[in-house]
């Protein structure tokens, strides 16, 4: 039928994830700023503060969750902007793979970084 391009079902799925990711970002950012100001009033402005901040496992999980949410939200958003530029189906599938690769790469890099910082403490 006209209008349902090959990835028919994925419109709603991606949209829901974008909205959920968006909401979780708002929540986590809220926590982030509040906690941040309690832990280091002028922000994490030196190396020692950061290391201490990352000792709390809750912070590490929150930061990783935050990273995943932001990266997914951003990439889905970028994709819907590119979708509006009318890419051909074949180009769109290339786009999808690129975005997934970038996404996974960024998250992996972020998790490695967080764990690395956390391990620096002991």
């Amino acid at each position, binding site marked *: 039928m006209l209008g349902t391009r090959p990835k028919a079902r994925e419109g709603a799925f991606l949209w829901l994830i974008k909205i959920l990711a968006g909401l979780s970002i708002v929540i986590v950012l809220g926590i982030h700023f509040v906690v941040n100001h309690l832990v280091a009033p002028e922000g994490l402005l*030196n190396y020692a503060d950061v290391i201490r901040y990352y000792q709390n496992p809750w912070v590490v999980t929150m930061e990783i969750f935050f990273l995943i949410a932001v990266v997914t939200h951003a990439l889905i958003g*970028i994709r819907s*902007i590119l979708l509006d530029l009318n890419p051909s189906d074949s180009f769109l599938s290339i786009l999808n793979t690129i975005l997934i690769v970038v996404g996974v790469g960024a998250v992996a890099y972020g998790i490695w970084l967080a764990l*690395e910082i956390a391990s620096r403490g002991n």
Partner: protein
Amino acid sequence: MMNNQPTPGKALRWFDPRHRQPGTWAFILNRITALGLTLYLALHLIMLGKLAQGPEAYDSFIALAKTPWVKFGELLVISAGLIHGLNGIRIALTSFGIGVTVQRQLFWSFLTLALIGSAIFGYFMFFVH
């Protein structure tokens, strides 16, 4: 097709605010702030990499980050975040059919909220620290 040769070149006309409703300004603002925030996200991830290189790399970077220009950039990022976030909430609400008939007022109130927030952050960043 529905529109005559929908070329990406027409995308610039997304950002033509003339004769547009608040809804489209929100749409434009969202897109611009989104692109800005994504750029910041990439920079943020790269800069945090300096943490892994040890204290001197990170602390020297922070020294750089204290210069007024970078601070102003960060303020822009914060206001972009506020605008994008609050408008995102507006779109989430309306997309579930909540507040659709008052979407215009929602836009204006959230925009003022975001600007007030940015002002507060600006004050703290430039006058307190």
